[in-house]
Each structure stands twice: as structure tokens, then as C-alpha cells.
């Protein structure tokens, strides 16, 4: 490494005289996270020694985090080669479905679908796992901030946030934790506070999500942050031209968040304390002001393009904007507002300091745009100008510190990964039927993975903006709704329906992914959502290891199959690989977020019971599918069959349910997921004020001969539905040919609770308050 400037802290790196060992060392010491193959490729490319700024640019852009090498690379199995997981499965499903309402998929910062009245919806879900493992509050908060900027980055106005969090067990003993792994309780508190602080401060309601606990997350916490926005379709402007100016605005640039993306593209090492500098510092109020300014610029049609600064900082945002438009860009780093004076050029270039956006502005509008930023108390600078060079050229104090060809920068060498055959554990199990099912149900209601999330939900503002129609907690007693409904437009009753699906405990990665997709769609349908678009977020271990890659491939296969069969296109996705800690890999986890619509949100269905005497129907077939179920896990039982999905039946069931809802037949509805029929029925009673349920297990559509299995199996495609008494016949007619049966009715009167008859005809009674106490702790 040789100093290349008298004034600047700028160095050149001579690659030509290096051997493989040197290359690996250079990548490591500069924090590039580039592989030997990639370093060799660079050695062959550069005729003269590159600057450190250029190498850092490449490290950022070619990181797994930014360019998704694994999803774009070749996957080699024993007997075939898959050329691109994204192209061949996920994006292909969307292509095959050819939905005219998909406006922009897998291209921009967020997926965009049509909504109503000239408006479109933008949705994006991100992960922020590595930062949250090291600095939980800042990591989670900046995760939320980042995904909100993704929505601003397509000119969307954020209307709702989602969050799904996975932690290690809170009661794990300190002695079980190796050096560098923080206690789940510490991580949990920080993450929950961070998510709340950012969303609340920015005034965006957090309306949907979930929390999971498992040993597989002890070393690798998962923080999924989602944001959904709306915008007028004709203001989705991405048309950067030659001669336009690049204007950067927002927070100051500093040393926080250096190498965030390369950090996120490697395993978490033992001494991860030193990596705190890779975590950014959140300041939601700056982003709130930035949001106002960006939306004013949008409404005034003053800019030709927009993108956010996230991973890789200016280097990635500026490069991407120029490259997308087939242009080049000259950048002058002198104008950047800095947090401290003596940053090295490469630090300014790749810093991931938060709350920054980049807009491209035609010459005549620059002054107006700067004026708006000023009015909103936001610092802005004219960073550079777009040209036809096809190169990104960066100067500081008059010296060129980086000059790269953009086509080269965006075409990293393709990677090849090997995938091993997945071994599915045996489904055989041994469990005697417990004597007291009521006791079992109460235990399950209090299970960390089933119990109420009220203590977290209440710390998130889910009412701000005044647009939340169906809430995370519904009814007089706050039961858990399956999906949230937002009313984003003042003059339209069209509702936006937001749901999640996540089933990482199912033993077969194929059916685990399938179940997550179906659950997201099922949850959406439970409140009346339809025309669902889905987003995928994979969190996996190191893809360079064959067995991790094998399970990833199997999960991705399910994505194509279920997406096409259920008629739900993927519109956006993001993968976070390399989730490995001294405790091993993360539990492979796929989150599916569903974004649906309901034409008149006043007809949305909630889970709380409505009227005494109404019949309750169980829709769907209950099979002996308990592998990875909450029931088996709470008993520590391995084995059990993984819930499988007959996609044709599933689609017909969901479509029929929506028809019944539109026909005004359905009064309440709840989907059956974790904890099966027992937990779903209990939750409906818990949400209701003075009403209860009587359910006879003998009437459940099922061939299973055990009460506990019928009560707790997690078979897919099932719903519990309260039907208006007068519509019972019509309801049954609609469901002809699909598994369904009236299993009981809504009961009223003092002390109404859950009254079950098991297969032997024995009666079990659980009081509402007893179930509430178990489920929510008071």
C-alpha cells in the first residue's frame, strides 16, 4: 500500500506483484470481504494500482448484502446446475403469473403494486441482524430507518411498519453463552425499544409482526423490518438524465456504519464487540424532516429520480443511480457535510451514516429543491452532475480519488455454490395422549411462542396517522387479529391488508417455506384481504456450506410452486446469509409478508365473536401433522409429520371464504396456525366480551383418532368462522366439495368461555379470564 497524496489520506494498492496469500490478506485488512477468486479477478483487471477508495467501492458493491451473489449465482447439486435462484424460481413465479397490477417488481428499492384511485402501494422488508446482535437498540432502530428510506426511495409516503423478531430463549443461562454472544434478554430489550423508538418518533404506525423464541436464534438474532407506503402512480418518476444534478440531503456523514454491508456479509466472529463502529446511529427526527422534504419535492415534480443511502453509503447510491440510467457521474466530496473533520476519502465514500437520501434534479429545479430542504431544516449539498461517461469519478480537494467503469463495477464474477441433499428427520413420534387437555391448552397459551405480544405491541404506536382500521389487538379485550387493515386514502374505502407468515420450526425446508407462504395469504384472507402480493426474506447460514445451500434451494423451490399455485406473485425480497455465530448457524428462517387489498374496509372481518347462537364452522381438514408444532415443541418431542399443503384445495378454500365474506355471511374469522384449533378457539374467546364458544371435536373434519392431535395439529388451510345464523345454509352451499363442518356455536351468558367436547364425549371447560391470564399474563 502506498500513499498517493500529500494532502489526503489516500493510498494506492499494487495488486500486480501479489500472490494469493497477499490477496487474501489485503481483502481482510481493508475489510473488503472479497473472496480469493474475486481478488484474483481484480488483480487481472487493474492495469495500474487501484486506490483504496476504488477497492472499497468494489468491496461494498460486490458484497453479498448489496448484490446477492448467492441468489444470482450458479447452484450445483449432485445431478444438476441451477443458474440463479432468483431468476429460476422467485422472479420466474412473478413472470409466469403476469399480473397487470404488478407495477414494479425486483427492480427498485421496493416492490410496487396497483392500489386505487390512481395510487400505488410500495412495500419492502429488510433484515438488520448483524447490527442488532452487536448493538441491539441502534441496530434495530436503523433497520427500521433504512426500510422507511427504501419506501421514500420510490417516492412512497410510508403508512405502516411491520416487524418480526426472533430471539434466543430469554431464560437461557449465562454459562451457556460463548464469548461474544450477548444474552437474549439484553438483545430483546434493546431491539424492541429500538423498533418502537424509530417508528413512534417518525409517526409511522407499527401494525403487524411477530416474535419467535428458539435456541437457534441465541447467537443470531433476526430483526425483520418492513415498511409500506403509497404514492400517486404518475409521481413514480425515475428518469435521471445527463446534466441533472445529484443532490444529497439529510444527516451528516461520519465514521458510524463503516463497513456495515461487508460486516453483514460475513459470519459474526467472537470479538464482535469491536464491530460496534459498523453499526449506525439512529436519529428518527432527522428522517421525519427528510421525509417531509422528499414528499414535497415529489409533489412538486422537481426531481427526476430518487434513491436512499443505505448499505455502502454514497458509493452504492450514487453508482446505482448513474448505472440504472445508463449514465456516469462526477462526484465532489468536498461539499459533503461531515460529523468530524479528518475522515479519509474512502470513509466518506462508504460511510453508512443514517437518514440520507440522494435525488437527481434537473438544472432549473436545483434552487427550489435546496429551498425545500432548508425549510424543513435539512442539510443538503450538490454532490455532482450526471454525464454520459459511464464512469463514476470522485474528487476531493481537487484530486481524483476514484475513477471506475460502472459496467465493470456492476458485473462481479459469478459465484458457484454447492448444494447438498437435505436430510428430512423421521416423522415417527411417541407421545401418550395427555389426560387433561384443558391443562395442555392453558400451558400452550402461556408458551413463549404463543402467548400475547401485548406488552410489546403497546409500546409501538399503531394508531398514529389515524389510518389503522383493523388493529394488532382487536375487540374489547384485545385479541390477536390475523392481519392489519390500513385506510391510506382519505377519499377511498379501499383498505390495505398486511399480514405475515413464518414457520421456521417445520422440519422440511420445502414445507416450511410453503407453510409460510400459505400462512401469509391465509392471514390476509382472514380479515377479508385478497389479490395478495408477497415479499420474501430469507435468513440463512453461510451459503458456502453445502448443507445450508441445500436447504435454501429446497425452500426456494417451494416459493415457485406455492406462489404460482396460490396466485400470489412475489414483488420484492431480500436475503440475509452468513448468519453464523460461535453457536453455529441461525435456524433457517423465511418470512413471507403479504400485502393485500379489501375493496371496502368497513366489511373487514375481525376475530372477536359477535352474537350468541351463531354457528361456528371449522374449515379445512385436520390431519396428524404435528412435526415442529407448538404442541410438540412445548413437550420437547422430536418427530411428527410436517404440515403439507394441497395448494389447489388451499386456493379454493381461500377464494370461497372471501366469497362468503363478500356475501355478508361471516361475522368473525380466525386462521389456525401455531397451537392449532385449540389456540385459535381460545384466542377468539379471549378477544370477546361476554361471549364464548362451544366446540365438539367429534364434528371436526378429520380422520385422526386422538383428541390432543385434533386440538393441536397445525394442518394448513384451516379457519374457524362464525357465520350469521340465517346464512348457515348459504355458507354450507358455498363450501360444498371442500372440507368444512359446523363444530359448535357462540355461547353467551355469565362466565362464557371455551367449552370443548373431546372424541370420547367428555366435556372440558375453560373460563375466559383463566385463558386470558395464561395468554397475556393478567
Amino acid at each position, binding site marked *: 500500500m502506498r500513499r498517493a497524496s500529500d494532502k489526503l489520506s489516500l493510498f494506492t494498492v499494487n495488486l500486480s506483484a501479489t500472490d494469493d496469500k497477499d490477496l487474501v490478506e489485503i481483502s481482510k485488512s481493508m475489510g473488503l470481504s472479497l473472496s480469493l477468486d474475486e481478488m484474483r479477478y481484480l488483480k487481472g483487471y487493474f492495469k495500474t494500482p487501484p486506490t483504496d477508495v476504488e477497492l472499497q467501492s468494489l468491496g461494498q458493491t460486490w458484497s453479498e448484502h448489496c448484490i446477492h451473489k448467492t441468489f444470482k449465482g450458479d447452484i450445483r447439486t449432485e445431478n444438476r446446475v441451477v443458474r440463479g435462484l432468483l431468476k429460476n424460481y422467485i422472479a420466474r413465479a412473478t413472470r409466469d403469473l403476469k399480473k397487470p397490477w404488478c407495477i414494479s417488481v425486483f427492480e427498485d428499492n421496493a416492490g410496487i403494486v396497483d392500489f386505487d384511485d390512481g395510487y400505488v402501494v410500495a412495500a419492502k422488508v429488510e433484515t438488520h441482524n448483524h447490527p442488532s446482535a452487536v448493538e441491539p437498540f441502534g441496530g434495530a432502530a436503523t433497520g427500521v430507518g433504512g426500510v422507511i428510506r427504501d419506501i421514500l426511495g420510490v417516492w412512497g409516503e410510508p403508512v405502516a411498519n411491520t416487524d418480526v423478531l426472533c430471539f434466543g430463549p430469554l431464560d437461557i443461562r449465562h454459562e451457556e453463552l460463548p464469548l461474544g454472544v450477548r444474552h437474549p434478554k439484553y438483545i430483546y430489550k434493546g431491539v424492541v425499544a429500538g423498533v*418502537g423508538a424509530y417508528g*413512534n*418518533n*417518525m*409517526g409511522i404506525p407499527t401494525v403487524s409482526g411477530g416474535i419467535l423464541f428458539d435456541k437457534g436464534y441465541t447467537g443470531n438474532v433476526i430483526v425483520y423490518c418492513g415498511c409500506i407506503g403509497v404514492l400517486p402512480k404518475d409521481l413514480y418518476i425515475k428518469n435521471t438524465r445527463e446534466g441533472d444534478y445529484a443532490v444529497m440531503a439529510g444527516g451528516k456523514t461520519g465514521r458510524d456504519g463503516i463497513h456495515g454491508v461487508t460486516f453483514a456479509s460475513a459470519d459474526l466472529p467472537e470479538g464482535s464487540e469491536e464491530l460496534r463502529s459498523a453499526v449506525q446511529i439512529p*436519529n*428518527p*427526527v*432527522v428522517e*421525519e*424532516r427528510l421525509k417531509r422534504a422528499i414528499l414535497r419535492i415529489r409533489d412538486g415534480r422537481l426531481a427526476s429520480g430518487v434513491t436512499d443511502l443505505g448499505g455502502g453509503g454514497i458509493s452504492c447510491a450514487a453508482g446505482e443511480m448513474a448505472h440504472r440510467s445508463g449514465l456516469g457521474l462526477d462526484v465532489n466530496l468536498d461539499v459533503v457535510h461531515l460529523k468530524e473533520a479528518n475522515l479519509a476519502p474512502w470513509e466518506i465514500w462508504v460511510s453508512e451514516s443514517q437518514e440520507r437520501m440522494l435525488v437527481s434534479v434537473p438544472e432549473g429545479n436545483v434552487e427550489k429543491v435546496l429551498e425545500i430542504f432548508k*425549510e*424543513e*431544516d435539512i442539510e443538503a449539498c450538490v454532490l455532482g452532475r450526471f454525464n454520459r461517461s459511464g464512469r463514476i469519478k470522485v474528487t476531493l480537494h481537487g484530486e481524483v480519488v476514484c475513477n471506475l467503469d460502472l459496467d465493470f463495477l456492476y458485473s462481479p464474477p459469478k459465484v458457484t455454490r454447492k448444494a447438498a441433499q437435505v436430510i428430512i428427520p423421521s416423522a415417527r413420534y411417541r407421545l401418550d395422549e395427555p389426560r387433561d387437555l384443558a391443562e395442555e391448552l392453558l400451558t400452550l397459551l402461556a408458551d413463549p411462542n404463543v402467548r400475547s405480544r401485548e406488552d410489546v*405491541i*403497546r*409500546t*409501538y*404506536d*399503531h*394508531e*398514529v*396517522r*389515524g*389510518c*389503522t*382500521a383493523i*388493529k394488532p*389487538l*382487536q*375487540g*374489547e379485550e*384485545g385479541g390477536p387479529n390475523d392481519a392489519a387493515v390500513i*385506510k391510506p386514502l*382519505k377519499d377511498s374505502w379501499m383498505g390495505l391488508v398486511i399480514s405475515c407468515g413464518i414457520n421456521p420450526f417445520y422440519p422440511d425446508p420445502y414445507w416450511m417455506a410453503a407453510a409460510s407462504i400459505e400462512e401469509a395469504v391465509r392471514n390476509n384472507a382472514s380479515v377479508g384481504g385478497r389479490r395478495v402480493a408477497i415479499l420474501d426474506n430469507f435468513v440463512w447460514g453461510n451459503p458456502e456450506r453445502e448443507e445450508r445451500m441445500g436447504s435454501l434451494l429446497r425452500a426456494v423451490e417451494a416459493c415457485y410452486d406455492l406462489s404460482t399455485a396460490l396466485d400470489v406473485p412475489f414483488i420484492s425480497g431480500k436475503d440475509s446469509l452468513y448468519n453464523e455465530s460461535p453457536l453455529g448457524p441461525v435456524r433457517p428462517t423465511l418470512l413471507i409478508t403479504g400485502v393485500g387489498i379489501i375493496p371496502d*374496509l*368497513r*366489511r373487514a372481518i*375481525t376475530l*372477536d365473536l*359477535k352474537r350468541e347462537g351463531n354457528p361456528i364452522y371449522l374449515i379445512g381438514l385436520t390431519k396428524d401433522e404435528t412435526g415442529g408444532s407448538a404442541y410438540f415443541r412445548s413437550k420437547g418431542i422430536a418427530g411428527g409429520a410436517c404440515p403439507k399443503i394441497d395448494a389447489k384445495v388451499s386456493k379454493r378454500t381461500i377464494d370461497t371464504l372471501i366469497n362468503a365474506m363478500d356475501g355478508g355471511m361471516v*361475522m368473525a374469522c380466525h386462521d389456525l396456525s401455531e397451537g392449532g384449533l385449540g389456540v385459535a378457539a381460545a384466542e377468539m374467546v379471549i378477544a370477546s*366480551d361476554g361471549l364464548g364458544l362451544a366446540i365438539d371435536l367429534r364434528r371436526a373434519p378429520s380422520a385422526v383418532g386422538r383428541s390432543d392431535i385434533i386440538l393441536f395439529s397445525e394442518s394448513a388451510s384451516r379457519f374457524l368462522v362464525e357465520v*350469521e345464523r340465517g346464512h348457515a345454509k348459504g355458507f354450507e352451499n358455498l363450501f360444498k366439495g371442500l372440507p368444512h363442518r359446523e363444530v359448535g356455536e357462540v355461547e353467551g351468558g355469565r362466565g362464557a368461555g371455551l367449552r370443548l367436547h373431546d372424541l370420547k364425549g367428555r366435556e372440558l371447560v375453560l373460563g375466559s379470564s383463566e385463558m386470558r391470564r395464561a395468554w397475556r399474563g393478567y
Partner: protein
Amino acid sequence: MRLEKARACVLRVGGTNCDLEVKVALEELGLQTEILHMNQLKKRRLSDYHMLVFPGGFSYGDYVRAGAIWGRQVITKFRRDLEAFVNEEKLVMGICNGFQVLVEAGLLPGNGVSGVPTATLANNSSAKYECRWIRLRVDGKRTPFTKIMKVGEVVRIPIGHGEGRFLLPSEGALKELIKEGQVVFRYALPDGKPAEGAYPHNPNGAVYDIAGICNKKGNVMGMMPHPERAFFGWQTPVWGAEPPEHGDGRKIFEGAVEYLKRY
């Protein structure tokens, strides 16, 4: 005054985030409403308006103490204008962070614009941010905002705050406030009786279950709960077969509009 002539102004600064829904509520009742950033107020005059709303949010990040910075800014820059506004018995409303601002600027609970806080909205007793639907008992009718409501009436409105525990410096100050009829809303139990501090009915531990107060004249009113989030029936958390037609918060805005019609 004819309603068409009345003008409301919803103020905002960096970190304000409930301005739009307040505007929607007021416009729904036929009141012309403008959202104005404090930076734009230099070009405009407060005297052009008849109602001023300080909405919810986290003004300037609430980094010092909720509402403290905005409260100071109001006093430093607009004290005279604000005094004239209040003296003319025009309406000033503070919701959540806006209530905190009115207290910090000394518009509440006193009279006029003192510039010195004489009460506080401290951290919730639960030490947490709380977002929940609570019940409010209408306690006083001194203010136009409760004009069309009955004393003892119970309304359901959500709260969303981390610093909402209303506190006064002395027992005497509380007696004075009660005597003057300045207590507007109190947190209540399901049966309508005051919560007597019982959590979560009184969600923040406020003294005397105080959720909202007014000044001596009644034209300045501040409250922690968000009536704009309980304006439409579909915003409420308990639906029958369909949502109710209106939310309870609507009445508070209706009271203000009735007053302006007669102003």
C-alpha cells in the same frame, strides 16, 4: 362568524407527526384548515386564524423533555402574537406533544402566556411508551371543546405517549385547578368512575387521573389522548358486523366548531 370564514392552523416543526389527521378531522366538520411549518410562519400571521392546534409528535426529537424545545421556541419567537391570540378568546388546542408544548410555554394551566411552566407531563409510571384505548370522563364544561358533551359522560379515545403523567407542584395547585373547573378530562374505569390511579385505566399515573385541562377562560385546552384518532367510526377497536358511524373524539372537535360559529 360564518363557518366558511373561520380558519384553523395546525402548526408543525421537525418531529411533528399528527398534523395531517387533525386537518382531516377539522375539514370533515367544514372548517378550513392549513398545516403550517413554524419556518413558514414568518411569512404568515397568526392573527389570520381563529383556531390554533399544536398536534402530536416528537417535536425536535423531544430530546430535552417532551415539548420543551418547541415550547421555548414559541415563547421566544411568537409570544406577543400568541398573547393577542389567546386574549381575543380564539381557540388553542394541544394534543399529546402539543399539550406538553402548551404546558412548557406556560399557556396551561394558567391564564395568558406566562412563558414559565407551572405543571409537567412526566414519564409514565409504567416507564414505557403506551399505546392503548382508554376511557375519559368529561369533568368540566368550562371549555368550548366539551360544549356539546355532558359532565360525567364517558368517551373512548386512544393515547400514545411515553411522557403523559400530569403533575402539579403542590396539593394547593391541584385544589385550585379543580376549583376553577379547569380539569376537562379524567381517565375513567369501564363504569365511568374516575380511575383513581388504577393502571391501565389511568395509563400514566397522572395526578387526579387528569388527561386534559384548560386555562381559566377555557379557550386554551390541552389533552394527552388523541381525539383525531377516534374521529371516524372505523378507527375504533370494537366493531359489530360493521364499524360504528362515528368515534367519540369527533365531539371534541364539534364543540370547537360550534364555538367558532358563534365567535
